[in-house]
């Protein structure tokens, strides 16, 4: 029985070939719960998350060990470099796979086979091995060789046609939302395969596509078309039944409050909070249907009124009256959000090169066996010697030989 302090997945070893965001997000969940996640990079092909939040003037040595986003995604993981194109690198990877539970990768579909490391090869070495591939579109179909980046998957999966102002083109979240969604699914696939392995004694290869998970989260829009022939489009912040429902300007620069009035009783309470200006007595607004029909006019009245309020104050007064409301919070606001602070939603992580910063803590929360911070993100190849000695029994001379040949290393090329 695993000691809770080691983490519930401490008996699971994961070879993590993933890069960018979707794959590292999946392995982060496993690592936070104690899995031994070995992050594998090549010295001439670093994970691009290392570069995504560099300062424009970043020129320091080993800057690739400092990137904030990399540190956010790679805590609790071990760092190994391995040139998989080199015969010795390939051989070491196979030997590691023989001793591992899971391989996760998010290369294009053709990369692992072209390296000679497809599942059939690895499974022959270790029938219990689970492999999760996040290749974008899977292995069949007319798009199977298409390139997938999360930022274009959001419109490709249908979400952007439903996101935006009615009078303007489709929009998207400023970050690649499909990446963490695929990451959650890859973690789910891994956990399901571990469970199935207890029943069958065998591992399996699972393809987790990038686009399907988002299309599944469009809810009733698919059925509304399939059953009723109705094509749902962008409606801004409007709700199909509730009015007012939206985001209104407040005092200060780019300050906004989001609020939802869900019933006639909430409407009366809403009018009282706004101190009942004349238009609140307009008979067109008394009932939900009237407010919905005259939503554009009502939105203008409400916005004129909210401009005088400070966003957090107005949101608090509305919630006291039972009305869902909240200030639109920027990244800066999130860091000082009292509720998030109470819930320790950020982990303070110290690293010799990256400094000490708050990073979002695991949102996947188990209270009995909680996730723990065990170590900050690894420097490039930080655990080469330790891992290869412990897992493959390599000698110092062998390690030096690998380093000399560039199969492993601690400096980018």
């Amino acid at each position, binding site marked *: 029985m695993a000691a809770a302090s080691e983490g519930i997945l401490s008996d699971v070893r994961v070879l993590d070939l993933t890069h960018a965001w979707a794959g590292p997000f999946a392995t982060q969940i496993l690592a936070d719960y104690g899995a031994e996640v070995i992050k594998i990079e090549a010295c001439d092909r670093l994970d691009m998350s290392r570069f*995504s939040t560099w300062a424009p003037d970043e020129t320091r040595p080993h800057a690739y060990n400092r990137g*904030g986003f990399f540190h*956010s995604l790679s805590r609790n993981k071990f760092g190994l470099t391995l040139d998989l194109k080199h015969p010795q690198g390939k051989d070491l990877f196979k030997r590691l796979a023989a001793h591992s539970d899971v391989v996760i990768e998010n290369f294009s579909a053709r990369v692992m086979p072209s390296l000679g490391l497809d599942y059939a090869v690895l499974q022959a070495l270790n029938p219990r091995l689970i492999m999760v591939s996040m290749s974008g579109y899977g292995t*069949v*179909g*007319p798009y199977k060789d298409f*390139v*997938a*980046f999360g*930022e274009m998957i*959001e419109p*490709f999966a*249908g979400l*952007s*046609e439903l*996101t935006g102002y009615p009078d303007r*083109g*489709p929009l*998207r*979240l*400023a*970050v*690649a939302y499909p*990446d963490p969604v695929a990451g*959650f*699914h890859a973690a*789910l*696939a891994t956990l*399901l395969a571990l469970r*199935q392995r207890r*029943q*069958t004694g065998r591992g399996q290869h*699972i393809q987790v596509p990038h686009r399907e998970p988002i299309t599944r*989260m*469009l*809810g009733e829009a*698919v*059925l*509304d078309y399939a*059953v009723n022939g*109705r094509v749902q489009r962008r409606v801004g912040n409007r709700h*199909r039944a509730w009015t007012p429902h939206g*985001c209104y300007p407040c005092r200060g620069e780019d300050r906004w409050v989001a*609020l939802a009035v869900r019933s006639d009783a909430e409407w009366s309470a809403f009018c009282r909070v706004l101190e009942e200006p004349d238009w609140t007595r307009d008979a067109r607004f008394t009932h939900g249907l009237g407010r919905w029909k005259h939503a554009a006019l009502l939105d203008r009245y409400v916005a004129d009124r909210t401009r005088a309020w400070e966003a957090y104050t107005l949101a608090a007064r509305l919630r006291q009256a*039972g009305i*869902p409301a*909240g*200030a639109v*919070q*920027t990244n800066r606001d*999130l860091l000082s959000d009292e*509720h998030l602070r*109470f819930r320790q*939603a950020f982990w303070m992580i110290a690293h010799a090169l990256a400094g000490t*910063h*708050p990073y979002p803590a*695991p949102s996947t*929360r*188990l209270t*009995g066996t909680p996730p723990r911070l065990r170590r900050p993100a690894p420097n490039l190849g930080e655990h080469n010697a330790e891992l290869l000695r412990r897992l493959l029994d390599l000698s110092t001379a062998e390690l030096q030989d690998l380093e000399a040949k560039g199969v492993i290393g601690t400096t980018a090329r």
Partner: protein
Amino acid sequence: MSAQHAPSLTLPLHGLYVLELAQEVAGPFCGKLLAEFGAEVIKVEPPTGDAARHRGPFADDHPDPEGSLLFLAVNTGKRSVTLQPNRRAGLRLLDALLHHADVVITDAATAPLPATSPHPRLIHTSIRPFGLTGPAAEWPATELTVEALGGVMAVVGDPDRAPLKLGGEQAHYLAGLNAAVATLLALEARQRTGLGQLVEISMQDSLLSILGNIPILYTHLGQVARRLGSRHHRTHPTAIFPCRDGYVGLAAQTPAQWEALCLLVDQPELLLDPRFATGTQCAAHADELDARLLPWFLARTSHEVMYACQERRIPVGLSCTIPELLADPQYAATHFFQAIEHPTTGAVPYPGRAFQMSGTSIPLRRAPLLGEDNDRIYGGWLGLSPHERARLRGQGVI
């Protein structure tokens, strides 16, 4: 296990019993995911049904608790029993159901469970807008206000217009997805410790976890991230571009993709322009760059643009409408949509499982009718006689 036991005949969660006391979207989406991979998920609905049964759109726009398209979409593969939790007899029934369950899913609208867990192996997955603890735990909330407080709306929309929520109910779906992963982790924990536990999912936390480098832009670079239309804060051209007949999403981020794009649009001089030397510099001069790129896009259909770009390994995809998704050749080739028959709608296509694994050739089942499984569960599981069931029905408990 012998070779004859072909693993494709069972799903990984076969034999797992889940009680779903949650309504609308988040908890039911968690239950749906567990059902898709083999769990026996029993929705415990109040006699009036899950609130989603009363939300439109309805099949043929005819309000009917068996015709809510949201309900049908998020409750595939489950059973339904009805139970009046405000009555003592109802609470006793709930307690008996909990004794049989491995997992119970609750949300902010669920009546409090018994203070002591009915058995030590029970996993309780709670999904609420702000979680169970903290000063905001009891705040009223909707999809819109959680997206505002969770940091999403600040980075959706045009710079000179109001912040926007994402389409649909992403905070709810995301929390349900997160809860399914957490529930699987709790099952792994139970495998090792023998004990169940409380799983605590907050929609706001879930949104924070998908913001990627947005929090990092502030903690490391001091940058307050604001709305940028369809653009990216750190790199360009990554945006949604208009074409002659629609839109495409473009993400040219690597040097190879940028070079391929400049050559494709026949503007190799862009590669020499210092304003566009890196993705970050392109982002700083995005309007100037778009002015150079847009004519090429506007002169072509979205399909022409997608195929031309993908041939050169530039990540581009259509901005798909729902009809386009249903006719999508890739989804057709992978049989993503599956026809599911329901008494109200007949057979219509639903999005299928997100991924395939051993056992997923087992077809998906439709959402249950209200109380459809009362006899099967109360009779078969709990062993109540037809007489007892009739009495409970008469009392309005089931």
